[in-house]
C-alpha cells in the first residue's frame, strides 16, 4: 500500500515539484502552504507521515510540531530545514519529530524515511489499540 504524505511548505513551487516526484514514486501526496492549513487538514484526514518546513510564516515548524503531537501523538513528522544544526535537531527530536533533513534534501533518503515513519506509525497505532483493548477488558472484567 502506498504511503500517504502531507507536505507542508510556504514555497508553492517547492510543493508542486516535490509532490510530482513523490507521486511518481507511488506516494499519495497532499499539500499545505502553512502550518495552520495543515492543522485544519489533520482534523479530517490521517497521514502516514508529515513532511514540514521548519520555518514558515505565522506558526513555525516547531510550534506546529508541538500542536500536532499534543493532538495526535502517533503522527510521524519529518522536518525540513535550511540548516540542520545539532542544536536544532536535538530540539526537534525532544518535541517528537521523527527526523530532520536539510534542504536541498535527497528524495531517495526522504522516501526511505517516509517508509520508516509509516512502519513506526503502524506500530504505535497497534500498541494504542492493544492498550485500549486491555483497558476495556480490565474495566469490564474480561
Amino acid at each position: 500500500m502506498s504511503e500517504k504524505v502531507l507536505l507542508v511548505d510556504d514555497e508553492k513551487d517547492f510543493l508542486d515539484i516535490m509532490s510530482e516526484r513523490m507521486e511518481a514514486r507511488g506516494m499519495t501526496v497532499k499539500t499545505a502552504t502553512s502550518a495552520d492549513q495543515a492543522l485544519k487538514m489533520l482534523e479530517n484526514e490521517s497521514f502516514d507521515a508529515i513532511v514540514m518546513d521548519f520555518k514558515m510564516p505565522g506558526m513555525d515548524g516547531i510550534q506546529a510540531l508541538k500542536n500536532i503531537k499534543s493532538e495526535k501523538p502517533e503522527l510521524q513528522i519529518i522536518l525540513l530545514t535550511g540548516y540542520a544544526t545539532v542544536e536544532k535537531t536535538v530540539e526537534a527530536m525532544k518535541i517528537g519529530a521523527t527526523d530532520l533533513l536539510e534542504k536541498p534534501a535527497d528524495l531517495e533518503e526522504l522516501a526511505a524515511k517516509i517508509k520508516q515513519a509509516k512502519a513506526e506509525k503502524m506500530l504505535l497505532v497497534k500498541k494504542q489499540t492493544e492498550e485500549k483493548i486491555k483497558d476495556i477488558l480490565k474495566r469490564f472484567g474480561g
Partner: protein
Amino acid sequence: MSPDSDSMNEIRFFGTLAAAMTHDMKNFLAIVNENAGLLADLAVRAQHQTIPVDPLKAETISRKIGKQVARADTLMKQFNRFAHSMDREKEWVDLEEAVDLVSRLAERILRQHRICLTVIPAPVPCRIHGFRFALLHLIYRAFEILTRHQTRELPDTEQEITVRFGTDPKIPEICFIRDSGPAFEPHTLFRSPEDQALLARGHMTNKPMDSGEGFCLRALSPVNE
C-alpha cells in the same frame, strides 16, 4: 554606550539579514535540485522504459529552473548592495530606495510576523547625506519595533503596515504607520542606549505620531543639496 556594544548591535543586524537571505537561497536551491531530479527521473524512464522525454515537459522544467535562478540572482544583487552599504562613511542616500532594499531583504522576517507592507512613493525627493549602513539599520529597527509591538500571540490575520515619506525635501522623513494594535507609547520608542546611538549614527531623530498609530524618523538637521 561602549563601542563594543555598538559593533555587536551592527553585527547582529547584519547577521539577521544574512540568515534570512541564506534561508531563501536554500529554498531556491531546493527547487532547482528537485527540478534537476525530475529531469533525471525522466531520463531514467526514457532509458529503461523507452518512454521518450516530452519536449514540452523538458521546456517547463527548464523554465522553472530559470525562474529560481532569476530569484536567487535578484536576492544576491540586493544582498550585495546591502554589503556595500558600509563602503563610504558619508554619501547621498535615497531613503525611498533604502526602505525598498530593507523591505526586500527582510521580506521573509516580515512574512513570518504576518506583516503586509505598503510603501507609498515619496512625493518629493527624500535624500539624506549620511552613512548608508546606519540608515538601513534604522529602517530595519523601525520594522522590528513594529513587529515586536504586537501582542505575544501571532495575529490570525495579516497586519497592515504603511510606510510613507515626508513632503519637505529639506527635512527628509520616513513614517511607519500600523493599521491596528495597541497605540505606541512615545516614551518607549527608540529610548534604549543602542537605539539612541543608532539614531545618532544615522543623523536622524524619532518623532512619535500624536495618534499613537506609528512614528517617523526625521533628519536631525535640514538637508542642503
